[in-house]
């Protein structure tokens, strides 16, 4: 008997949890009243012409109303509505209507011009009507299936169709898709087609991460946007040294090697601060045959070494690492350079004597 009750309670709990999870995950609409995608497909299958609901759309130009059906239009057919609320309360999503309003503001588009060309065949553009739950706004690839816009595309002249594209805030759906780990991916994409990126993105957006005169990293300036992906997330400071060690060369893509010592010196946590003393552990450097950990460290992260020991600090290295010196020749076997070894830096530090 007890086991049966436990099983019943467990079943009820499981069902309740599953229901709650379904609402949380968006599998089941949570809002009151619930909103679902408009049942376009069902209307089309019933043979209802688009213009019966979207009356006047065939004459709509670049401006004017959206020609979304009103409740009065709906009850012309649905004579006995099951609810006194406006039909759009439940049928059709608010965000879809908002997207249509944004498109009205940000697209130079005329239904009138397309209606004649398409001979009244709306599905030719609104291809997703076959999916019950899809937004019917055509993506750009659909436009390109008729209009190649070759001239505009080639010269990145988006203004012909798009108005104030950046403030619409809609990432492209049919090219340079900003999805997945786009923070990681965007650099190499932008390098090949950077002028395409600038049709939406301002210089500020690039410079706020890559600029060397940024006032602070984005996650500190926009401290109220924790969901924003960022190379330097808010607690980056804790592991910045370890991340630099794991990917030597990564930091110097944007930062000068002097950036490290400049900041560490200003923070008073650099070896050049008298109070801090030598930052290297025991056994860092010594005569040949000793542990000499610095050699491997230098090959692992030459940028880190260059930060403090660049410029005049290089003489410390050269005092040992020269032909005939106790540190020996620092070049690997296959080393080549096109620099003038007697006159160019850093060669002349050792070679000016004709070594």
């Amino acid at each position: 008997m007890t086991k049966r009750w436990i099983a019943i309670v467990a079943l009820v709990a499981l069902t309740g949890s599953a229901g709650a999870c379904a609402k949380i995950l968006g599998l089941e609409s949570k809002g009151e009243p619930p909103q679902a995608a408009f049942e376009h497909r069902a209307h089309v299958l019933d043979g209802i012409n688009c213009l019966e609901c979207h009356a006047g759309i065939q004459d709509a130009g670049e401006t004017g109303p959206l020609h979304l059906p009103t409740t009065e239009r709906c009850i012309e057919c649905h004579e006995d509505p099951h609810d006194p609320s406006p039909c759009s309360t439940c049928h059709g999503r608010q965000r879809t209507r908002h997207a249509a309003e944004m498109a009205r503001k940000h697209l130079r588009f005329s239904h009138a011009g397309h209606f004649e060309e398409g001979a009244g065949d709306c599905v030719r553009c609104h291809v997703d009507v076959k999916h019950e739950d899809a937004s019917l706004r055509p993506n750009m690839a659909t436009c390109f299936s008729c209009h190649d816009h070759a001239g505009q595309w080639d010269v990145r002249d988006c203004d012909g169709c798009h108005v104030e594209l950046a403030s619409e805030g809609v990432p492209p759906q049919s090219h340079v898709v900003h999805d997945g780990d786009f923070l990681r991916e965007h650099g190499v994409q932008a390098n090949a087609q950077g002028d395409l990126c600038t049709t939406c993105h301002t210089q500020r957006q690039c410079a706020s991460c890559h600029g060397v005169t940024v006032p602070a990293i984005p996650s500190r300036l926009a401290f109220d946007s924790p969901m924003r992906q960022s190379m330097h997330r808010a607690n980056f400071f804790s592991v910045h040294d370890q991340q630099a060690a794991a990917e030597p060369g990564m930091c110097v893509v944007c930062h000068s090697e002097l950036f490290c010592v400049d900041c560490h010196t200003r923070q008073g946590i650099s070896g050049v601060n008298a109070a801090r003393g030598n930052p290297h552990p025991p056994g860092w450097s010594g005569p040949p045959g000793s542990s000499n950990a610095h050699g491997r460290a230098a090959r692992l992260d030459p940028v880190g070494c260059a930060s403090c020991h660049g410029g005049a600090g290089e003489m410390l290295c050269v005092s040992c690492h020269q032909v005939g010196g106790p540190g020996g020749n620092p070049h690997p076997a296959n080393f080549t350079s096109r620099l003038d070894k007697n006159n160019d830096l850093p060669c002349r530090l050792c070679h000016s004597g004709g070594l």
Partner: protein
Amino acid sequence: MASAQPHRVGAELWGQLEPNAGMIILEGSSRKYPYIDAEALVWGGAGATQLGLSDNDATFEALVMTIKVRDPRGVSDTRLGRFMLSTGAVRAMHIDGGHLMLRARSKTHFEVFGGVPVDGNIEGRKYDWMVGGRVSQGLGNKGMIGASYYNRFNAGQRSDEEVGGDFALRVASWLDMSAKISWELVNPGLAEVLGTISAQTASRVIRGELYVTKRSPTRMLQSTSLFTVLGDPGTLAAGGNLRWRAAPRLDLWVNGALQDAQDDFGWSGYLRGVLRLDDDGKGSILGELRRQQVATSSWTGLRLASVIPLYEDHDTTVGLMPEFEIIFPDQPEPNQGNVWPWGRLALRWQPTKSWAVAAAVEASANQVERYDVRALARVSYQGQWPKK
């Protein structure tokens, strides 16, 4: 109604307590006319040195100050001023200079650029100047392929000279790929290789990416540095990531990469989940577990963050943003603590679409500070005219 591009202005007051710092950030841009764009962001501040400020003196800087003159038919673009140069295989570079692009009907683009790399407030060796160019060819509407060259001088001497190639292709509606490779000419050899291929399902429920990164840190230093003589230790990372829309409001990511730093092999990766609290994503919760074990870097991190809408009407919103991260280093140094927790609680009030006020308190313990508490505040305004 579709209207002309507006002029935009913005201002931000930003402040921090302990250590104290304050900044004002002013920006403006105009894209009203098809033949000219202008954009500027300048800032001034005083206080804590860690924020790019110098020694408690007042600091004034320009991040961006540029105009772009454009032939309305798109034949040419010319950008002048302070801006980010990012093109072809040339690494993104902040410069004071110019960038000219010419476009031929054959989809061939020619670019020349040059200027003085911005060095910020950094003392020490400064770059003298750089110059370069790129030729690229459009491949229908599928992408671009290009070749570039640049030469950077330091202390009157050739410092970096690189040639490179790049391409970006959208082979099919579900497949993107792009890559770039740069070859150093001064100390001949590969400087950097980046490649990525991503694909997605038609429904966009799943998107995956494979990537590879190879860098030679000695070739990314200026060639005037002694540390360029150490040859090519090189680093390599190859991995992939997958984003799965597990439910309409739930996105899951997994990322993993094998890494090599001078024959020291390791790996890094993360698991991340974002749950949207409503259909529009106004509220959300993020959880992330991250692990890195490469060379001398070995740590595990756990991060939680959320945006919680407290109030919303037509114009006004109020939201709470808690954020927390804890780092577990594998081998903490003595006196640096065994865990490094960090947390922040922010509150934002947006009384209109133009104005926003935010404040936060954050606390942390890390390898430098045993206990660190700060307060942050920001008032910002974004406006445009003509108004919509």
